[in-house]
Each structure stands twice: as structure tokens, then as C-alpha cells.
């Protein structure tokens, strides 16, 4: 039999999706179901003095209207429970919910929600992260000391408006700067952006006897179960979370918003209650990628080799930290200011601030696009100042085996030099460009995922296998990957492995999708299970054979990649187009060839959007890009052909030597594009790189 991995995969859910029969959370319905709608704050920061629900209750078809008083003191969050289910004393961003309605029809619910009459007293609002962290800034969470933290104690913060804060130091930065031939400093900034998944949040909650059922788009059902248990004060095993297909996630679907008020509405009405968020609300209240302002200072020797590095990173966390799962309450890669480089000495300080903006959360490689844009622009500026070719400067500083990175960690292996050599070749680096064109380079590194899971495998009489896993497939191809790993190990056709995604009552605990984890963790658990099946079969066990495959993945390893991008610039308007792009990616063994290509090409388009056009524009706390008419993402016509070079021969810790790709390739796009535009004549230090900023830079103004 030919190697399963050599044949392009067929998605197990593909037929359902392309024929339109796939069911999503918004399709879930139950007898007697009610529809929810919410009333949100018009103010970015205000005290709630009174909530009058009489008019709302009088709307025909309304079954319940809940306010903060009915849910107090319930607050939710993935780690820090700081977001009130419904605000009772204070609202902290425009859209912060103050009331929830359940009614017979969505229209009645919406009408009623519009009639909830709230008396507010406006409080001074803080929109800027530095202003929020200044002494004497208005406090956004005066009661923060009382908030619960799931599983861990909250690390101390330097200011009551700080969500999270960390300082890292290694080597001797002072000596490194003293030894430097030149020291450079730059500040860059990025606005918040949205994931723009196709499917908006949706959920259905009902209570059946003592059991709470939730159908949801959440990509981490067990985590949602634990959070709901904490918020509702019920046991975890009294909650069943069902996750049908998730229509896109990109990190955003780790946070549930509607499930909490739905739970309370289901409890008071005794009926199933569903909500489907309008996309306008997705863009106004859901967890965005953090806006950031980043100042980098780096010393280099005469050859441009980094001697010391200092960084001050500020993230706009918005009104709540609830969207962040990591205990230090910052984006995961908050501290990775020079990812992929050798950094002998560094001091990195990062702070995530509370502001009166919509809450920020996780978005595909959290923290990395921000730091990557800053670092790659910074190094490019340094290269130009030194008169060194930008790719050459990167080659000199690329991390190699035995070097320490910006975290002070030593790399035992590094594909980065090879990635850059391959990029130089494949992109035709150095080839003369037509007038008006510019070329830019940027590199990146992303850890492969970690975590722990188990799944259940059954081998039947015919030699077919059924795998049951609690993992959701948010479009990444998790279920297909699991099936192919099992098929390859057992040397059977992938069609003979059926992978079922099951609810939390029927699956071992699962960490969910996130942190580039699934191929590493679930893939290895599948491999472990397949091996156990094979062993049992070979030992003569009689089918059906049932085993549990497990993995506890702790290896710390990185995938490396780099882009070269060419732009064509219209000097009269500042508009530019990306006309050519090369991506070299170190991906290890490929399990799903189509999905790997899809993730890398999709990651490129994702980054391109952030570079060229994406901005959740917020004016006075209000999101003014609340539709896809205003919040633009790239269409296929904007995406140039991508020359993709895969390095597959450096094995990773995943099954058969796989590494992860889901969050590998999106972060560095922004820097590569910025550097290409700079090469064409306009350095822009803030995203998105709009034509207007480019024109200003061309004309010598600030950008």
C-alpha cells in the first residue's frame, strides 16, 4: 500500500460543507425555543444607576428580561473572571451588556432590548494604553482584587489598570549596549483587528433536569464547561457542551459571550434559549487582536550583529481580560519581540492595559504579528542605516543551534539559516527590480503546540477503526488529520477510519483547539492509540478492540519561516500592490498536504489583510467599522500568487515528525510588506499601511 501521507487528503467533513448539509450552532433548534437579544451600553464608561425593564417586558412575546441585578455577582472569563454576565454597577465599553431578553421571536427580543431604559452616569473614559497606565488614571476595575482566577492565583500587576505585566531579562543588556557600535530605537503601533471568521457566534442553552446543555461555536468545549461550572456554580459533569462544526475561529472562538446570559435566561424561563450574534456585534463587542504600541531599542556591532536588546511593549486589552486564557493575562507571545534571532542580552517589558475599548482576546498567533511588525521594521531600518542588505542582516543574526533567543532560551536545533538560504534562492533576491517596485523580507518563528489529551479508538471485526475525540474541528482539518495518522500507522486506507467529534459527556477531557496544538497533541494521541490497537491486534486480541490513545506533549521546539515580498507603488497616490511573494516554511512531515498549503496560503492572506487594510477603527470608544462594508478584508483579487517552498526534512515532535502550521505563517507578513513598501520609498510605522500614509511618507511627512 502506498504511504497514506503521500496522497492529498479528502476532508472528512468536506462533503457536508460543500453540499450545505453541515449544521452549525446557529442551526440548532429545540421545541419551545426562545430567542435572545441584548441591550448594550451606549457609553464607554459609566455607572449604571437604574434599569427600567417595564417597557421591554410589555412587548408581546417577551418571556424574560434579566438585568445585572438578576445575575450578580456572576462574572465570566477564560482565566480571570472579570466580565460581568450583565453589568450591574458599571459599564466599561460601548456595547457592554446591561440586559438580556428572551422572547418567542428574534424580532420581539430585539424590540424589547431596544426598550430597556437604563439611567447612566458617565465616568471619565480611558482609550489610550499609556494614559490608562499613568498614575492617577481613572480606574476601570476598582474591585479587581475580588475577581476570581481559574486554576491559578493572579500574578501581581504594577498598576490597577494593568491586566498583565511581565519583565524578562537575560545576559547583561547594559554591557551589550555599551559594547555596541550603534544603537537604534524605533516605535511602532498597530490597531486592533478582527478575525473575520465566516460564522458569527451562536449558542443554544437548555436545562434538562439537572443537566445544562450548551450547543456552541466555542472551539474548546471542556474549557467552556469548566468556566460555566465556575460561573453558574454547578458541577462540571452536570454540563454537556456540544460543538457541531465551527465555521472559522482564528483564535476568536475560545471565548464565549452569549452562553452566560443564555444560561440565566434558560434557568428563569425553563425553555431552550438561542442567540445568533449579528456580525455588527461581532465587530463591536467580541475579542479582537490587541492593538499595540511597541518601542524597540537594539545595539549592534560593526557587522550588524545584535549585542543587546530592550523592548517596551504595550497592549490595549480593552475593558476585560476575560478573553485571555494564559495566566499572565497578555497575548501568548507578548514578550517575543525579536523572534527567530540570536539575542545575547535582553530586557523586555510588556504590559497589557485595561481601557474602555472593546475587550481584546486571542487571534491567530496572539502577540506575534504585533511584535513581528515592530521587530522586522526595526531591523530593516537598522540594515538601511548600516548600509547592509536586509536579508544579509537577517542571515547574520538568525538564530542557530546553541544560540539563545530573545527569551534567553537556548535553541538546540534551528532551521532558520536554511530557511533564509532557501528564501534567497527561491525569491531571486537581489534580482534588479523595475522602477517603482520594492522588495522586503521578514522572518518568523513559532513554537509547535503543547498540551495533553486522550481519545478513544475502537477496531472492529472488519479491521475498520472508529476514533472518538472531544476536539472540535474549526476548519483546520483536525478530524482528517487524526484519521490519516491512524490509517498510516495501521496501514489501512483513510476511508476505513471514522473520526467522530463527540460532546463533553462522551469524551475524555480535551484541551481544545489552540496554541498550534492539534497536530502535535491530538496527532500524537492518535498515533499512540493506533500503536496500542496494532499491538493488541498482533497479540491476538479479539475485536472489537478498544483502547485509549494519549499524548502529553511538552517538547519545546520552533518552526521557522521567512517571506520575501515585492510591491509595486503608485507614487502619485500612495497605493501599492503586492505583486510577488515567496514563503519558505519549515513544516516537518506533512500529514494533510492540502491543509498545510491552505494554512500557509491562508496565513499569508490573513497577514496581508492586516498589512494593507484591516483596522477596527474606534472613535471615542465606538467601533466605526462595524460591517464588512467598512472593515475590509482581502478578497482573492488582492492576493498575489504565493511561491511556497516547504522544508519537510527537519522532523518535529508531532506524529511521524510533523510540526505545526496553523499559526506559523501569518505574523511576519506585515513586516515583509512594510519593508517592501519602505524599499520602494515610503517607511510607514503604523498599520495598516494605507495609501494615504504611504503618500504622506513619500512626501516626507510623518506616517
Amino acid at each position, binding site marked *: 500500500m502506498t504511504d497514506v501521507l503521500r496522497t492529498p487528503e479528502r476532508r472528512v467533513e468536506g462533503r457536508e460543507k460543500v453540499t450545505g448539509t453541515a449544521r452549525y450552532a446557529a442551526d440548532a433548534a429545540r421545541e419551545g425555543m426562545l430567542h435572545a437579544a441584548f441591550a448594550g451600553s451606549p457609553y464607554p464608561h459609566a455607572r449604571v444607576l437604574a434599569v427600567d425593564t417595564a417597557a421591554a417586558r410589555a412587548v408581546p412575546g417577551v418571556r424574560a428580561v434579566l438585568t445585572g441585578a438578576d445575575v450578580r455577582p456572576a462574572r465570566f472569563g477564560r482565566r480571570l473572571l472579570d466580565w460581568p454576565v450583565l453589568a450591574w454597577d458599571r459599564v466599561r465599553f460601548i456595547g457592554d451588556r446591561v440586559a438580556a431578553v428572551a422572547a418567542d421571536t428574534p424580532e420581539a427580543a430585539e424590540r424589547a432590548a431596544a426598550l430597556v431604559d437604563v439611567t447612566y452616569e458617565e465616568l471619565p473614559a480611558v482609550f489610550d494604553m499609556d494614559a490608562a497606565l499613568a498614575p492617577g488614571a481613572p480606574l476601570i476595575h476598582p474591585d479587581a482584587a475580588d475577581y476570581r482566577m481559574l486554576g491559578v492565583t493572579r500574578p501581581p500587576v504594577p498598576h490597577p489598570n494593568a491586566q498583565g505585566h511581565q519583565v524578562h531579562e537575560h545576559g547583561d543588556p547594559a554591557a551589550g549596549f555599551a559594547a555596541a557600535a550603534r544603537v537604534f530605537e524605533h516605535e511602532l503601533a498597530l490597531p486592533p483587528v478582527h478575525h473575520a471568521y465566516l460564522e458569527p457566534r451562536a449558542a443554544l442553552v437548555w436545562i434538562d433536569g439537572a443537566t445544562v446543555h450548551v450547543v456552541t461555536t466555542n472551539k474548546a468545549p471542556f474549557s467552556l464547561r469548566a468556566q460555566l461550572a465556575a460561573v453558574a456554580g454547578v458541577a462540571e459533569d452536570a454540563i454537556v457542551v456540544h460543538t457541531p462544526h465551527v465555521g472559522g475561529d482564528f483564535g476568536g472562538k475560545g471565548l464565549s459571550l452569549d452562553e452566560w446570559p443564555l444560561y440565566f435566561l434558560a434557568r428563569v424561563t425553563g425553555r431552550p434559549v438561542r442567540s445568533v450574534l*449579528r456580525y455588527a456585534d461581532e465587530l463591536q463587542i467580541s475579542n479582537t487582536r490587541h492593538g499595540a504600541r511597541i518601542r524597540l531599542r537594539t545595539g549592534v556591532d560593526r557587522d550588524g550583529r545584535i549585542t543587546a536588546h530592550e523592548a517596551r511593549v504595550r497592549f490595549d486589552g480593552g475593558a476585560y481580560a476575560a478573553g485571555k486564557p494564559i495566566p499572565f493575562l497578555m497575548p501568548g507571545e507578548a514578550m517575543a519581540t525579536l523572534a527567530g534571532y540570536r539575542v545575547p542580552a535582553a530586557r523586555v517589558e510588556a504590559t497589557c492595559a485595561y481601557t474602555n475599548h472593546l475587550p481584546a482576546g486571542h487571534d491567530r498567533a496572539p502577540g506575534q504579528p504585533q511584535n513581528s511588525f515592530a521587530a522586522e521594521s526595526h531591523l530593516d531600518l537598522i540594515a538601511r542605516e548600516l548600509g547592509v542588505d536586509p536579508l544579509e542582516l537577517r542571515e547574520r543574526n538568525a538564530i542557530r543551534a546553541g544560540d539563545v533567543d530573545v527569551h534567553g532560551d537556548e535553541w538546540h536545533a534551528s532551521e532558520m539559516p536554511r530557511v533564509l538560504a532557501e528564501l534567497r534562492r527561491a525569491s531571486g533576491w537581489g534580482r534588479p527590480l523595475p522602477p517603482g517596485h520594492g522588495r522586503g523580507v521578514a522572518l518568523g518563528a513559532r513554537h509547535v503546540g503543547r498540551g495533553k489529551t486522550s481519545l478513544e479508538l475502537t477496531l472492529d471485526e472488519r479491521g475498520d477503526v472508529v476514533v472518538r475525540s472531544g476536539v472540535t474541528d474549526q476548519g483546520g482539518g483536525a478530524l482528517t488529520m487524526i484519521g490519516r495518522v491512524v490509517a498510516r500507522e495501521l496501514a489501512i486506507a483513510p476511508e476505513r477510519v471514522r473520526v467522530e467529534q463527540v460532546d463533553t459527556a462522551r469524551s475524555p477531557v480535551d484541551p481544545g483547539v489552540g496554541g498550534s496544538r492539534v497536530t502535535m497533541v491530538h496527532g500524537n494521541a492518535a498515533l499512540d492509540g493506533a500503536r496500542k490497537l496494532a499491538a493488541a491486534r498482533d497479540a491476538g486480541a479479539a475485536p472489537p478492540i478498544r483502547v485509549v490513545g494519549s499524548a502529553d506533549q511538552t517538547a519545546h521546539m520552533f518552526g521557522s519561516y521567512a517571506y520575501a515580498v515585492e510591491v509595486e507603488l503608485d507614487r502619485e497616490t500612495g497605493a501599492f500592490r503586492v505583486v510577488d511573494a515567496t514563503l519558505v516554511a519549515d513544516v516537518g512531515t506533512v500529514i494533510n498536504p492540502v491543509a498545510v498549503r491552505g494554512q500557509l496560503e491562508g496565513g499569508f492572506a490573513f497577514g496581508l489583510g492586516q498589512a494593507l487594510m484591516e483596522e477596527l477603527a474606534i472613535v471615542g470608544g465606538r467601533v466605526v467599522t462595524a460591517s464588512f462594508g467598512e472593515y*475590509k478584508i482581502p*478578497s482573492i483579487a488582492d492576493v498575489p500568487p504565493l511561491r511556497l517552498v516547504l522544508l519537510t526534512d527537519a522532523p518535529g515532535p508531532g506524529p511521524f515528525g510533523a510540526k505545526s502550521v496553523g499559526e506559523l505563517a501569518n505574523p511576519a507578513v506585515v513586516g515583509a510588506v512594510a519593508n517592501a513598501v519602505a524599499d520602494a520609498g515610503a517607511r510607514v510605522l503604523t498599520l495598516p499601511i494605507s*495609501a494615504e500614509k504611504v503618500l504622506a511618507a513619500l512626501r516626507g511627512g510623518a506616517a
Partner: protein
Amino acid sequence: MSYAYHEPSELDEALALLARHGDDAHAVAGATAFMLLYRQGLLRPSHVVGLRRVRSLGGIRDDGGALVIGATATHREAERSPLVARHCAALARAFASVATVRVRNQATVGGNLAHADPAQDPPAMLLALDAAVTAVSPGGTREIPLAELFVDVLTTSLAPGELITAVRVPALAPGTRAAYVKFLPRTADDYATVSVAATLRRSEDGRVADVRVVLGAVGPTPIRATSAEDALRGAAPDAARIAEAAALARDAADPIDDVRGSAAYKREMARVWTERALRSLVA
């Protein structure tokens, strides 16, 4: 959906339904603009009157040299129509500039004009071509020149319950050239940051006999840059003259700051794209 949907096949019936239900009724053709406002909760009609089955509103024809595009012809039909292309290639281009194929297959030419978003593409071009719509109401039929149709953002001079049946583009004087340029600095799938529609005819001696310059997306309605036209009319359209006219177009623009750019930037882009459009017409 909590409205009654009517789909009459006769125009009279449509007009009667709209008259009967007054403010509670809303006409739709392709419903692309309507549905967005409806889903946002900004419109709440109890009766929706679909026009797509009214046969007399469809089709594209030549009427003695004038081009007549029925209100319910889709943008896709218009963009691919040999009649439209023969009449004016730039007009076909303006129709083809709207959104994506998916939207153009659904959205209608009449719906576009009635929606009156100043950032739309066809209105500027049709205004430059001196087009007029035919409008009917229970009271009768009238012609409304496009210059009088657009009143404000999303606001036309159509009376409540009055329907566009067609847009009529007069025959172009022989030798007239036309251009439509749409500036899309962010993504190909967007409304214009600035658009310029222009027509130009030169006399035997090479001077400009006739010219019209219309700016899109930089005012509450498409804006006719008459000062720019005046600067060109009767003149030899050399580079300097065109630059002068383009500068006047910049001053005619009345944009606002938004996510597509600051007002100052859009004004400057009105200049650049007017210059480019005019240059293409004298090249």
C-alpha cells in the same frame, strides 16, 4: 422574516401595493441594499414589494440611438450587454466596477440609482453621460435627469411610492470619448475612495468642444465638476490645461473623513484621478 412579501407581475399592481401600504411598504429589486439595512434593523417594513417579476421593468434596448436600460436589468446583464458596450465602453466598465460578480448578478441598475449611495459607481458615469430616469407613480410618468435625481446621501427626488422604470442614456455626439476610473487603494472589493467619470469631445481643430467631469464618493451625491469643465471647454487639452482642470476638480470635491481616507487625501485623489481620466481621453 416578519413582513409580507409581494411579487406582482404587473407594474400597476406594484404601484398599487406601494400606495396602499404607504410607509409600511418597501420596494425591492435585487434587495442587495435593502437586505443590509433590514438585517441591521434600520428598516422595518411590514410589506415588501419585489419588482423582479414585473416584465416591463427589465431588458436593455436601443431606442433610436438612445440606450434604455430597464430598472431591473442586473449590473451583470448591463456590463455584458453588447448594446451597452457599443453605446459606451466606459459605461460597461462602470457597471463592471460594482462590487463582485455575486453582487452584480443580483443587484439591479434601477435599485442602484434609487439607493443613491454617493460612493456607487454607475451614478457618476450615467450623470456624465447626461442620462435620465423614467419614473412612474399612480399620478403618471415623468423623466428625471440624473442631476435632479440625487438629492443627498441615500436620498433621491423620487416621491414615496414612485418607481424607476428605466434609465435612458442619450446618443453620444460622434467623436465623444468617455472614461470611468475607480480608485481602490485597499482591496478590489470595495466602494471607491474616489471615482471619476468623464466624457470629452474635441472639434476638428483639436480643441475641446464638450466635456463633462463627474466625481464619485467625494460628496453627498455625485458631483459635477463644472469649473473643471469650463477650464477645458474651447481650450487645447494639453498637459498644463488638464492639470489646471484637475486642480479645479479637487476644489469641487466635498468629501468627509472616513476609513477610506481623510477629506484632504480624497480631495487630492480627486485631482490625481481627474487628471488621469482626462489624459486618457486625449491620448
